[in-house]
């Protein structure tokens, strides 16, 4: 059964040509989908449509068989830029999704501390966003998206500002967390290897249109060594060829 259904959705910014062009897509519960594509091909726009932040010019979106007309509580969203509130310390930024709903309890604080520990910021809880590096800020944004344990997680190039080692660590942490909570994930990236490592499926987007989803049949949970495996490299090449339109 499909959890997210994108039905013939198109989007144009103020009468320009379609940035997202009649996209048909369905994602089943618990699947990890990666969306790759060149810069400017419409990935962020498609993600925002799926989250209910933008209304498609035509077509419709369904999450769990209910039509999406506004952002849903089930969805955790990580924006391309960290977008932290600079007047709040890191912990309060992470707890923002909760404090907008209800009173923050001691349990929530523990949970926030755990998540910050997980993203490697355990000792930065009292800092303010402007006292953090760019990569640290994006990690706070990831912790913020996870705090409500959403059933559906949408991430827009969340690891773009990180070094290779931290990125690899966070990829493993993300996989572990999503496996554990059975989270459905839609992960936008422009890094082919990252997409192949994380995703159960990799979908290529080019000029507003989606290509066929490429299933990634590598063993789960992923072992970090598979990055250097020949089957892994073959998959990367396949994705690359699809992006180039030569597959």
């Amino acid at each position, binding site marked *: 059964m499909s959890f997210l259904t994108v039905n013939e959705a198109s989007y144009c910014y103020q009468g320009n040509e379609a940035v997202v062009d009649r996209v048909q897509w369905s994602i089943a519960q618990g699947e990890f989908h990666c969306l790759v594509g060149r810069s400017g091909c419409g990935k962020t726009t498609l993600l925002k449509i799926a989250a209910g932040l933008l209304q498609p010019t035509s077509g419709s979106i369904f999450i769990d068989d209910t039509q999406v007309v506004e952002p849903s509580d089930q969805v955790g969203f990580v924006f391309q830029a960290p977008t932290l509130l600079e*007047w709040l310390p890191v912990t309060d930024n992470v707890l923002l999704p909760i404090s907008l709903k209800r009173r923050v309890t001691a349990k929530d604080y523990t949970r926030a501390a755990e998540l910050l520990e997980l993203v490697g910021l355990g000792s930065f809880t009292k800092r303010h966003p*402007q*006292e953090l590096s760019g990569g640290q800020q994006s990690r706070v944004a990831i912790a913020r998206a996870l705090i409500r344990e959403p059933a559906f997680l949408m991430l827009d190039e969340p690891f773009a500002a990180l070094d290779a080692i931290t990125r690899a660590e966070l990829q493993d942490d993300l996989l572990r967390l999503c496996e554990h909570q059975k989270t459905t994930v839609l992960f936008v990236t422009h890094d082919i290897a990252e997409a192949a490592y994380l995703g159960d499926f990799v979908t290529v987007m080019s000029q507003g249109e989606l290509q066929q989803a490429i299933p990634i049949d590598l063993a789960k949970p992923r072992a970090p060594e598979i990055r250097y495996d020949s089957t892994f490299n073959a998959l990367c090449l396949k994705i690359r060829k699809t992006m180039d339109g030569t597959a």
Partner: protein
Amino acid sequence: MSIRIYSFFLLIALLVGWEVICRLLGISALVIPTPTAVLEALWSTLESGYLWPHIWITTAEMVLGLALGCGIGFVCGIILGETEFLRRLLYPYIIASQVVPKLALGPLFIVWFGFGMTSTVVITALICFFPLLENTLTGIHHIDPQKRELFRMLRASRMQTLFRLKIPSGLPVIMAGVRVAVVLALVGAVVGEFIGGREGLGAAIIAAQGMMDSTLMFALFIVITFLGMIFYQAAIWSERWLLRRHIKGKTQ
């Protein structure tokens, strides 16, 4: 730090120069009194208790005018910022009213509220109203679109977006408006007293003028300047306190 010492020496040098020139050229105290005479006048009026009631009255007018003007300006700024329709409807008038010289309304207020404190407080409040209105509107209107999107994603209500995003994020701009208002409030209070005050530092200047006492007028300038500096410092301190979280981590 050492540059401050030089600034201080510059002041001393200027005062000494002023004193020397006045004495050498024998300028009449009616035109320009010597600094020593001004300080003497200042001291004696403070000691005799003549100045204190005037200082209190002007301070009270400033505080009341600032509180009223800033408070109403802030609330109106929020209301206009939140209702697109009212903003569009009233904006041309707000722009137009910026140009109206508010002090020129002083005589009218005297007709309405009579001589004394009320009309001065009203003038001061009116002058403080506009910078707060303008800055509150700007502050809560120019919010990072990404942050708006974040709050939309988190399904924040309109009130939550106002109090947890717009006001905190606009606070630096709003506080800059308060600083402008403080400077204007002093002008408003003193000029208001020129027009319609029986007491207060402005009225005291008019009285000194009536007695052709330039020395006392200079002494009053000093008191007014000092009062302005205290208010401005207080504004800067409260700004720092309110923005203490915003400033954290920002390199100066």
